[in-house]
């Protein structure tokens, strides 16, 4: 199923601690579509996801991002969520004492929906999330796989128009990756969810089968196309592709920020072979 929803990202520039990371990002997503954004560590992928979600220490200096005409940039994070955006985080934070069930109920209430325990239990079953995780604090001593299953559970419960999956494949074993990806694919087909999957591994693509693949380097989308782009990347790697495209900068060599919101992907080795 597709629907008429549109997520339009136009010329987004953003800085973190005064350093420009995003240097003009353009993307258009339709409801029911799956887009993948790939790129080397340090290219600004995660910054894109947090900029769109409105993390407080990320400053947008230019551009626009709208869902069905509603401008997100410049509005508080919770408004963006209520406008239909969801971010499955790469590193979901632990919140002891706040139960997953309570969080989901509060989030549903906030968007004017009725909390439903029946639906929560059903979704938990679909995603193989054991009951105990619904009554434990959010992500509190969850394994990597449990965290990503619960991120996906929240996504399924909140039924946004568009979801950004920020490296949802990191820290997942094969079974969990398959469960999570299948649930996401079902949402695109059944509910018209539009997906922006950020990854630097090809493994996720095999499960998600994106309609569009975008390659990001140094804070810009440098190539867009179909699955053939992933095949080309597999063959020549990011550096090879950059040469073919005539792109000289792969990453934004940002000084490592010392603030609380340090982006861990920036600090990682930007030249590591993503398919190694």
């Amino acid at each position: 199923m597709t629907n008429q929803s549109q997520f339009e990202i136009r010329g987004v520039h953003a800085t973190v601690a005064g350093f420009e990371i995003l240097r003009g990002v353009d993307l258009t997503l339709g409801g029911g579509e799956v887009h993948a954004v790939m790129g080397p560590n340090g290219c600004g992928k995660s910054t894109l996801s947090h900029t769109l979600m409105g993390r407080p220490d990320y400053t947008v200096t230019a551009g626009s991002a709208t869902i069905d005409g509603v401008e997100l940039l410049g509005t508080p994070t919770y408004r963006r969520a209520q406008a239909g955006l969801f971010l499955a985080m790469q590193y979901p934070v632990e919140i002891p004492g706040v139960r997953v069930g309570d969080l989901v109920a509060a989030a549903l209430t906030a968007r004017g929906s009725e909390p439903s325990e029946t639906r929560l239990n059903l979704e938990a079953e679909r995603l193989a999330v054991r009951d105990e995780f619904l009554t434990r604090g959010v992500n509190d001593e969850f394994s990597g796989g449990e965290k990503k299953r619960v991120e996906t559970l929240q996504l399924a419960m909140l039924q946004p128009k568009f979801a950004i999956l920020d490296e949802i494949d990191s820290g997942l074993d094969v079974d969990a990756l398959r469960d999570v990806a299948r649930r996401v694919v079902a949402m695109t087909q059944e509910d018209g969810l539009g997906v922006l999957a950020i990854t630097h591994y090809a493994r996720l693509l095999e499960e998600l089968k994106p309609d569009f693949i975008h390659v990001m380097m140094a804070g810009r989308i440098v190539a867009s196309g179909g699955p053939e782009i992933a095949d080309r990347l597999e063959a020549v790697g990011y550096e090879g592709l950059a040469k073919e495209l005539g792109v000289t900068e792969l990453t934004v060599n940002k000084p490592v920020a010392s603030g609380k919101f340090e982006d861990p992907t920036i600090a990682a080795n930007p030249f590591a072979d993503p398919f190694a």
Partner: protein
Amino acid sequence: MQQFSVDAARALGGPDWLVARRVAAAEAITTAELPTTVEEVWRYSRIGELDLNRFRPVPVEELNEPGDERAPGGGPWALEVGAHAGMLVVRDGRVVRHELDPSLEAQGVRVCDIATCGVDADVQAAFGSVVADGADYFTDLNDAFTPGGALIWIPDNVVIADPIVVLHWCEGDGEVSFPRTLVRMGRNSEATVLERFGSPSTDHLVDAVAELIVGDNAQLRYLSIQEHGSKTWHIGLQRAHLGRDAHLKTAAVALGGDYARLRAEARLDAPGAESEMVAVYFGDQNQMLDFRTLQDHVAPRTRSDLLFKGAVEDTATSVYSGMIRLREDAQKAEAYQTNRNLVLTKGASAESIPNLEILANDVKCSHGSTVGPIDDEQRYYLESRGIAPQDAERLIVLGFFDDVFARLPHGGLVGRLRKTVIDKIDRGVGV
């Protein structure tokens, strides 16, 4: 200070043994000075603001007789605590009503007013025995002017399922009251005691003392809840002595008052004794909530655990100062202490001072404390789900407290206490 003279103490009347104690304490007071913040145990406190001259003891004629049922709080509060085995209603420090399940009375349990229920030599000896060591000004003052107090006396081998509740209402404007509680658990006995303090918004000083004696192999669960009005001052001492294999769980919930202080201490006198102390506190507006704790290990193979969690907002302050003392003979003892504080607004502040005094060499001991705002990442995570900032803050603060709420010895009031916390969060001015 005329109102705290020896004659004034003597005039309170009652049994001779009590009058003799009062007179001795009043004599001690006449030469004593109010403590100052120079003393470590009063550091960071607001003791310097206290002008004792402004307060007069609640006079005899205003104390009323036992059986006076005008005490506010007895009714709705008694309903809120649900099923109970016994109840004492205390107004301005005077027990005005007491009741006890007759079957427990038949087993020798006593729940009554120390001043009027004809206590024997054992009770007389127990009264004051726990706080005698290192008594301070306010303990002496309480000794000199307490009208009597709540006696909860559990004989050996008696096990009581439902709680015994003590409901304190302190209301006299410009007055000081002296609530007093003595809980004595005989060998192998078990009970839960709930003390609840409240006041209207009157200029009132409460000087409270609670003594807990937990006999060999006895188990006491003790919960004190402080919900005073916004002008009330509360200076409380709660001290316990534990026998062999005795188990004590104390919990404090402090939400009210202008300046409210609790000194909570447990002395582990014999091997196998275990103490668990937890607390929840939330200060807002201009409140100061002040805690001094002592986990005092005298004997070997004793164990203590402490978890105090608090939040402050607006211009409120909190103080937590905790001492773990492991004495020479306390080999193989284990002692743990954790204090965590959320500072919700810029004008609020929390002090956390953990202390260790270890004189034994074969012990396990740890302590930790944190003071800080709500974690930005947690807030962002919840907001990314569409939860508005104020709702996110409420969820995080309640989540922060929930492990302590879950450990309260009497769960029946948790819903109501959480509601008070929610009201405080929602009233807060925000960051």
